[in-house]
Each structure stands twice: as C-alpha cells, then as structure tokens.
C-alpha cells in the first residue's frame, strides 16, 4: 500500500509538472496573441535609479548563470559527470555555482527591499509582483541552502534529477530516484514548478520577448503602408 507521502510525491512530481507546463504554454501563447501590449519588462528604473542598479544587475547576472548551469546539466548530464571526474574541476564548478547563487539572492533581497521602501516603486507594485518575488526568494534561498548543505549537486543533479526530468518529458514519470531526496531539494523542485505555473500570469513573461532580432537587424526601421518592403530599398 502506498503511504500518504507517496501520494504527495505523485501529486508534486508527476502531476504538478504537467499542469504547470501546459498552463505555461497555453497562457503565454494566448496572452501574446490577445494582449501583446501587456508584454513588457515593466521597468521601474525611471522612478528610482540607485537601488535599481544594486538589485537588478546582480540578480539578473546571477540567475542567468545559475539557470544556464541547470539547463546544461539537464541536456548534458554525461558531460557534467565527465567534467566532475577531477576534484579540482568539481570544486571550481561548485564554488562558481554557489557564488552566482548568492549573487542572485543578494540581488533579490535588494529588489524586495526597494519595492518595500521606495514610495514611488510601491505605486507600480502589484499583488502578482509580490507573488513572483516570494516564489523567487523561496527558489533561490532553497537553492543556495541545498548547495551549502548537500554539496556536489552538480554531480547528483546529473545522476538523479536529470534522468527524472527526462522521464517526465518521455511521459513516463519515474519517481524512484526522486522519492528519497531530502526535503529541501523537494521544496526546490516543487517551487520551480509553481514558478512555471505562475509565469504566464506575471511580469516574468518579459523573459520570452528578449530582443533577439536586434542583433542582426539594420539600424533603421521603415514601415510602408502602401507597399510591401523590398530588400533592395535603403533603411
């Protein structure tokens, strides 16, 4: 007979991820089609400049690096294990992960403090902003905690979590390896699903509209209302 804990594991690790992913896909697409206007970074730098720098910059560089680490570990678990073969390389990777995790945490705390303390910023802060901040704080804090208390995560992520995530993608969730993981790790994974679930309802959608065409478009943009643009024309 499966215990209550097992049922919870099934709900959190093989039902929630699908709910989160489908909500994410459906709502982001629908929101983009119907309400493109709401896709914005909603930057508040214009209202407050100093604290903005000390919060936004460490947070963004930190989270981008750490996320990239997770994605690489997901796609190339074998490569990661190979890299970690040498203890020196493992230490470098673990230290880098921890440093960028702490950078993210510090930035996030600065962002939350700014939202609380600056009256102008409170004017442009919504309930969903606080939900996002709460979820992100939980995510980053639990991540840093796991990195400190359960070291060599870069290796056991590749060995345990990556196969589990792949089993989700293959529509055959395998909870065998996940079930015995410590509570903090489970919290980190569950909270990640919650973030994905809430993502399309929040300002986080700005991540999806990063300005990639800028890198290869021409400097000047001209739109014609009476003729289709042809490449031979200037501008």
């Amino acid at each position, binding site marked *: 007979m499966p215990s209550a804990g097992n049922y919870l594991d099934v709900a959190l690790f093989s039902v929630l991820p699908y709910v989160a992913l489908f909500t994410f896909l459906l709502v982001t697409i629908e929101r983009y089609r119907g309400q493109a206007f709401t896709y914005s970074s909603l930057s508040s730098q214009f209202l407050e400049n100093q604290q903005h720098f000390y919060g936004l910059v460490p947070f963004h560089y930190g989270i981008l690096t750490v996320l990239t680490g997770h994605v690489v570990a997901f796609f190339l678990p074998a490569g990661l294990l190979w890299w970690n073969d040498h203890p020196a390389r493992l230490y470098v990777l673990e230290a880098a992960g921890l440093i960028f995790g702490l950078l993210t945490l510090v930035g996030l705390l600065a962002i939350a403090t700014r939202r609380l303390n600056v009256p102008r910023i409170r004017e*442009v802060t919504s309930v969903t902003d606080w939900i996002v901040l709460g979820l992100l704080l939980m995510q980053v804090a639990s991540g840093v905690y796991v990195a400190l208390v359960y070291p060599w995560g870069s290796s056991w992520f590749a060995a345990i979590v990556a196969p589990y995530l792949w089993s989700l993608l293959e529509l055959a969730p395998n909870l065998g390896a996940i079930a015995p993981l410590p509570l903090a790790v489970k919290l980190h994974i569950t909270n990640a699903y919650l973030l994905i679930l809430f993502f399309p309802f929040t300002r986080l959608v700005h991540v999806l509209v990063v*300005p990639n065409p800028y890198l290869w478009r021409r*400097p000047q*943009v001209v*739109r014609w209302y009476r003729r289709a643009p042809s490449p031979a024309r200037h501008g």
Partner: protein
Amino acid sequence: MDVRSQIAMVFHLDKCIGCHTCSIACKNIWTDRRGAEYMWWNNVETKPGCGYPTRWEDQQSYRGGWEVADGNLRLKSTSKARIVANIFHHPSLPTLDDYYEPWTYDYQELFNAPEGPDQPTAKPISMVTGKYIDIEAGPNWDDDLGGSPVYAENDPNLAGLTEEQRAQLSAVERLVFFYFPRICNHCLNPSCVAACPSGALYKRGEDGIVLLDQNRCRGWRACVPACPYKKTYYNWSTGKSEKCILCFPRLETGQAPACFHSCVGRIRYLGVLLYDAARIHEVALSSDEELVDAHRSLILDPHDPAVIEAARRNGIHESVLESAQKSPVYRFVKIWKIALPPHIEYRTLPMLFYVPPMSPVMGQQTGGVVEHVSGDLFHDIDASRVPMKFLANLFGAGHEGKVRYALRKQKAVRWYRRALTVGDVEMGVAERMLREADCSSEEAEAIYRLTSLCTFDDRFVIPPMHREEAIEMLEDPLEHKQGVGFGFLQGPRRGL
C-alpha cells in the same frame, strides 16, 4: 537616387512669444494620462536655460545621438555589443527627477482647513505617489530666465563663450533671451529607432513620421537615452515608451497638428520635403563644418524633372509631389537658407528647422541706443547681445557662418521693407544690404510675405495621405464586423 517624402517643419523663432499654447494643446490631447503626466511632447524653453529635462543638451551625461568612430556611425548610448549590459540597468537613462515630479493640488484643503491665523493653501500632491510633496522643479522652471543664476548659466550652449560674452548675456537690466519650442524632429537618421532592441520604433515610409509601436515596445528603455533631444519618454505606468506622433490622425484628415494649429504667434510651418534616402548614411558622416550644407544637400528640388521621375518610380503620389512644390519648408530651408537644423552635430538629421531669432540680436547697443547705420551694415549682428557663438552652438554645430548668413538675410529683408513702407532708410542702402546678404528684392518680398502675411494655407501645405491606398485597408472588413474597429482593440492596461 532613392526619393522619399517627409513631412518637415520650420519654427520661426523671431515670431515665438513663448505663450506655451502649443504645449497645452498637445498635453490636452495626448499626454493627460497616468504615467504620461510628466511628458511634454511639445515644450517651450527659454534660451539661455537648462531646458527640459534639465540640461538635455549635455550629451556627456545623457549620451544621446550618434558619434563618428573609425569612420563609422555609432550610437553614443548603446550598441549591439552593449545590449546585455544595458538591458538590466541602462547607465544613461534619465529619471523622473531629471524632468520633474508631476503634481496636482489638494483643493479640499481650501474648504476644510481649520480656522487659523493664515489663509489656507491648496497643498501640492504628487501625481505619482499621491502624497504631499514640496515642488522642486517643473517643466518650465526657468521660464523667462526665472532663477537664471542657477539655470541660464548652466546652459550647455554657453560652451566656448568668453567670460565677457557670458557677462554680457546676464548683465543686470539688459538680460536677453528668446524662446525655443521643441517637438520630436522626426529625424532622417533617428537614433531612437536605431537603439530600440525590440524594433518597436519605426519611420513611416510614406511621410517620414517616427512612431513607436505600443504593442511591440517591451520597456527596455534604450530609446530614451538614445534620443539626443530627449523626445522619447518612458511611461512608468504602462511600462512602454511614448513619443510625439506629429498628430498623424489629424494630418491624415488634412488638419495641421494641434501644436501647429494652435500657435498664437503663427511661427510654425509644415510641408513636404523630398529627400534622397540613399545618401543618409554618407551625409551623417560629414564633418561638423560640412554638416549643415550636407544635410541641406539631401533635400531634392521638387521641380527637377529627374527628381520627379525618380519620385514617381518610388511610388510617390502626384498630389504629394504637388505639395512638395508648394512646400513653405522647402523655401525656408533650401531656397532662402534661413532655417537651420537644431544641434545637427548629433547627426540624427532632424527634419524640424529653426529660423534663428533676430529680436534680441538687434536690441543691443551702447547707452541703450541701437546703432543702425554704420560703415559695416551688419555690425550690430556680430556685436549683438546674444553672442553669435551661442546661436552657432544651437543651430550651426558650433560654426557661425550659417547662422550669420541667416541673420544677415533677415536683417536685409527688414531694412528693405522699412525703406519701402516707412521710408526712413534710403533704398540704395537697403539694396546694398540685400546684395551683401545674397538676396534679391523678389526673394526679400517672398520672405516678407511668408513671414508676416502668411495665411493658414500658406503655412501648412499638408499632402493628402492616401490612407485609402494603405495596405491594411485591404483587410477583409467582414472579419471585423461587430468588432470595435480596426487596429488597437484593447485599452492600454499595464501588464501584471
């Protein structure tokens, strides 16, 4: 030759009385909304002065416009390489305090204040936070040289003036100033467009109006520092940038833009210019000395058969060509050469031109007597209270020649008309002045007519926009049946 048409503008500064009617007309139509209260798409500044936002001409700190580096044009504020660094926190973004915190008043206080020894006052309330504030700045804080020891003396255009010239500008009881109304210049080489990471900003092919697609703007803010004239604004409430749209819905229905229409001094002119889009890059690379002439050389003669032929090939409508031939802007800028682009050294190639002001220039002389007749007829232009260098910094990329030419011609026209109508100037002297100012009597007459006796239809020659031929008109109307209209169907609600 790639001929395109552009709605271009001339502001005749000699006629501006600084009444701000243009600003109010614009504000009432376009920027009376939450998040836009601080924006003045049209504003009128006092020169010398710091302007709005404060010291916007100081590109050392605002990093607006283009610079030439290794023979290439480069944005000062951003680049493709710097986008990652700039997108999280833009180092040269002006903040609300560089403009001013918009406010209203707590009028209830006038009625509800408890009885006391003083008159009750309506306390100012911030339109951002709703809290009581001490007003520290406003959009016209240094209007008419208000607080000039703080503001006028910090005008970036005073660079390169001698101590003596500066002292002359602010001499007690002989202060001198003029007005400088500003809107978006709808540039040929707009730096806001080039800086936009999302490609939301664009220039309309048919009429050259620079617009910002609200549905594509993602609030990366790059356009705000990039525009050297600070004419793109960030709406802190919607998280999108906004700018002057040259009242295109009015233009498309044959009306002048609101700021033009409402102008009390009738200083504003609007008309079509034809230009050669193939040479924009080359012209923007010219040296500072050549810039004004190079910019002018982009503008094509609408009577030249070769230009007309090329324009037709490019699909420019006959009615637009006809407007271009009647354009008042073409005459001021290209034929008479008395209208000059503002700060051409920013290399955005603005399509708004200014006739430099005569009034304060003429009003100078020792002992309060204005010296009119001297051996050198243009003596008082060069020794004027507004130093030529100051005007040159505004309208000539620091070079006085073009400004002097424009002022001499204007002065010659005045003297010529004075000889004709008042008769206290000898016609021989007036004709010599015209000759020396490179102006024929017919030209003087034409300048006089378009400056002083211009009707509404002389000032605004608006081409038909031919929206009936626009490609979106080909959309199936049945698809939109029972809808609320074409285009932007939702209210501009801030995202979550």
